């Protein structure tokens, strides 16, 4: 892997009924993160998420019907591949990620040290200060599940803030449409022998992000879906 002097950076934001916050999320990225093309995958929203994102300056890919987080990510990655992106950063639409973390996130890829960079909220204890205990417990269980099923050793298995190099973009082809894709990502990292690194990040737990985020009870369904896919004949 070589150090990059110039690169084409794409941000992929999956959004489903996020019209209230998507404009601010895009504005934050434009203001605080390295410049790149912002792609919003509107996953069949019933509100005006797509038009808000478009007027905020993002390229909008609209799913006609809701297909889930995994499907939206793959749509964004396919668009990035077609447009010859060198780096892709996946960013949550609900405003829980800090755009200032992106520079640190992409640095290992720019310097040619790894293919995938994963953000972790558990590397910096200050970012988990107001995390609900049920969420913390679920995330820790997710880490153990990932280690057992995918043999990838991470401290935060379900963080939407990730960065992929050109090799990572090319090889990251998940097949699960729903949120179980986040477990499948680690499977792809292991199978394709992608080098990875974790960097600390800051998570803002607002009432909005907690209400919009996955419920802890959904973890069982996600794990079951992932398990069934692994058992597929």
């Amino acid at each position, binding site marked *: 892997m070589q150090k990059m002097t110039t690169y084409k950076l794409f941000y992929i934001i999956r959004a489903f009924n996020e019209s209230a916050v998507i404009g601010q999320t895009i504005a934050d990225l434009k203001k605080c993160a390295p410049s790149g093309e912002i792609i919003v995958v509107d996953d069949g929203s019933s509100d005006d998420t797509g038009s808000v994102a478009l*007027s905020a300056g993002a390229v*909008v890919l*609209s799913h*006609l019907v809701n297909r889930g987080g995994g*499907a939206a990510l*793959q749509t964004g990655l396919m668009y990035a591949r077609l447009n010859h992106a060198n780096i892709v950063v996946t960013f949550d639409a609900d405003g829980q990620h800090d755009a200032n973390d992106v520079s640190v996130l992409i640095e290992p890829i720019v310097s040619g040290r790894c293919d995938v960079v994963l953000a972790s909220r558990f590397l910096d204890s200050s970012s988990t200060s107001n995390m609900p205990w049920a969420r913390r417990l679920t995330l820790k269980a997710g880490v153990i599940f990932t280690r057992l099923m995918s043999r990838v050793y991470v401290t935060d298995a379900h963080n939407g803030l990730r960065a992929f190099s050109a090799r990572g973009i090319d090889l990251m082809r998940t097949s699960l449409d729903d949120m179980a894709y986040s477990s499948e990502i680690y499977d792809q990292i292991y199978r394709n022998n992608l080098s990875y690194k974790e960097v600390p990040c800051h998570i803002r737990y607002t009432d909005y992000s907690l209400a919009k985020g996955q419920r802890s009870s959904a973890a069982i369904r996600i794990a079951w879906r992932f398990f069934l*896919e692994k058992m597929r*004949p």
Partner: protein
Amino acid sequence: MSLFQVLMGLFTLLCFLWCAWKCARRPGRYARTVNGLLALVWASACVLILNPELATVVAGIFGIKRGVDLVLYVFVILAFFYAMITYYRLCDIRKDITLIVRHIAIAEHKIPAEKERVELKENNALQEHERQPKV
């Protein structure tokens, strides 16, 4: 032989022949496996209907007292098997829908006005450059 045995025996035999024919003719490993297993199920059903005492003999081999219990256990296992096949088939249909939705989304992507203006300007400049006579 009772009327039930004659009718059901004939029905299961026809089902067996239908599945065996599909197993032999259909391309693809998946379709062949499923139809082969179904043919096996119908053949077993046909044999057991025509000779019910055989179920008790086979059940005895597995340590089960009654033949009807063996049939019940096998039925439950097959029901699970069928549910799994249906689930994976449904997943495949969902994936196909996603592929269509994805291709439409990319083909009809919307570009913000500012970027559209820049791209238009670049295209015009390129066309102007191409139109200029080469010296």
